[in-house]
């Protein structure tokens, strides 16, 4: 089922990068369509508090996402979300995006901003105990663990900040990290280390989740010695970074060894007329502001490509 309209710009992904590209493209009177696999807002929606987005006082991620969505729609940007992309045909003058339900959309250029998703630990029991002991959001689920003992997996800013937040509820929080040092900013490390409810198990990784109906126990390995141990636990919160949603782009545009999209300073990918923006790009810093900047640049570059 082919949609007969050929859009000037098709944007894949509705996080801050995709929405920014949508705002700029539609305001430039380019016919623009955003195709989004999840909920509009991307990982920004998962952020309880956004305090450092310039020009906006502390707000919630979903509220900021909603404003961006409405802003894009006000300029005529069309948005279709909660869909599944089956395949891409990105070479040639007209590009095509085919959905699993058979719908096909065509455009003169495409901006890829598929974003990322929380990285799972990838060990036995993870999917089984999701929501019944395993969580990826402390602000959502922390109060279910009031007076209980939990593990936080990870050593970056998210892990340490969320561990501190969890001490509002949990009796004890144990941070399990694979290295002998943390990657977080020093202020986050200090806050965690000064909190009497937080303990640390370094150079260790979880190996399995176990329980009867709910999570009750984890096994872990001390990496330098290989020694295995088990620990009774009520909950595990996982904050070990993100993986780019670029699996279906492998072999279509150039990706690096981590699956991130390689772009130049104009957000141009390895294919003419195909741009990329946001957390799925090769980059060092992943913030709402950097995603918004990428989306802006990609949109302006796409407009220039269309003019040429």
């Amino acid at each position, binding site marked *: 089922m082919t949609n007969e309209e050929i859009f000037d710009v098709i944007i894949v992904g509705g996080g801050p990068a995709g929405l920014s590209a949508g705002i700029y493209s539609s305001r430039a009177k380019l016919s623009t369509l955003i195709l989004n696999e*999840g*909920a*509009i*807002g991307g990982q920004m*929606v*998962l*952020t*309880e508090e956004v305090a450092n987005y310039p020009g906006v006082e502390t707000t*919630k*991620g*979903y509220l900021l996402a909603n404003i961006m969505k409405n802003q894009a729609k006000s300029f005529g940007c069309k948005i279709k*979300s*909660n*869909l*599944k992309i089956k395949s891409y045909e990105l070479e040639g003058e007209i590009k095509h995006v085919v959905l699993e339900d058979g719908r096909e959309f065509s455009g003169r250029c495409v901006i890829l901003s598929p974003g990322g998703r929380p990285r799972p630990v990838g060990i036995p029991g993870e999917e089984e105990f*999701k*929501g*019944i*002991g*395993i*969580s990826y*959001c402390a*602000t*959502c*689920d922390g109060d*279910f*663990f009031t007076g209980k003992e939990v593990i936080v997996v990870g050593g970056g800013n998210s892990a340490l900040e969320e561990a501190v937040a969890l001490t509002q509820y949990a009796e004890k929080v144990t941070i399990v990290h694979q290295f002998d040092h943390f990657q977080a900013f020093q202020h986050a490390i200090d806050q965690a280390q000064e909190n009497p409810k937080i303990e640390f198990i370094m150079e260790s990784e979880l190996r399995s989740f176990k329980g009867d*109906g*709910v999570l009750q126990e984890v096994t872990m390995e001390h990496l330098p010695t290989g020694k295995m141990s088990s620990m009774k636990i009520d*909950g595990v919160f996982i904050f070990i970074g993100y993986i780019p949603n670029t699996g279906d782009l492998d072999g279509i545009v150039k990706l690096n060894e981590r699956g991130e999209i390689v772009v130049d300073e104009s957000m141009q990918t390895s294919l003419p007329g195909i741009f990329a923006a946001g957390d799925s790009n090769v980059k060092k810093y992943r913030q709402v502001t950097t995603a918004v900047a990428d989306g802006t640049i990609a949109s302006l570059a796409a407009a220039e490509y269309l003019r040429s």
Partner: protein
Amino acid sequence: MKMLSTSLHEFETAAELEKYIIENENVMVCGGRMGPMCIPVYDLMEELEEDRSNIKFAVMAFDSPEAGIIRNDPACRGFMGLPFTMYYKNGKVAHATSSIQNMQQVTTVLDEHFGA
């Protein structure tokens, strides 16, 4: 008073929910907050509402005392992740899930219990 900012029908009382699931054969109810794990589920329910006329979609504020009808349901025993999503068939719980679910996970449950 409605607590959730969605276009879905929102139950304010347990009695209203009980009456609704008796009057409607297939009902999906999401008990949650305006938080990051719940909003994506509300979003996909809003989209599904347009396509699945044989199913009624609704939400209920998790923190409302009246939402005890969801929180304390035996099907939710052990749940420790928002939202709590309930699927009612002919007034009885057919299925329940904890934490965020994607479109495929939700439609799989809908197809299994309410028909494609």
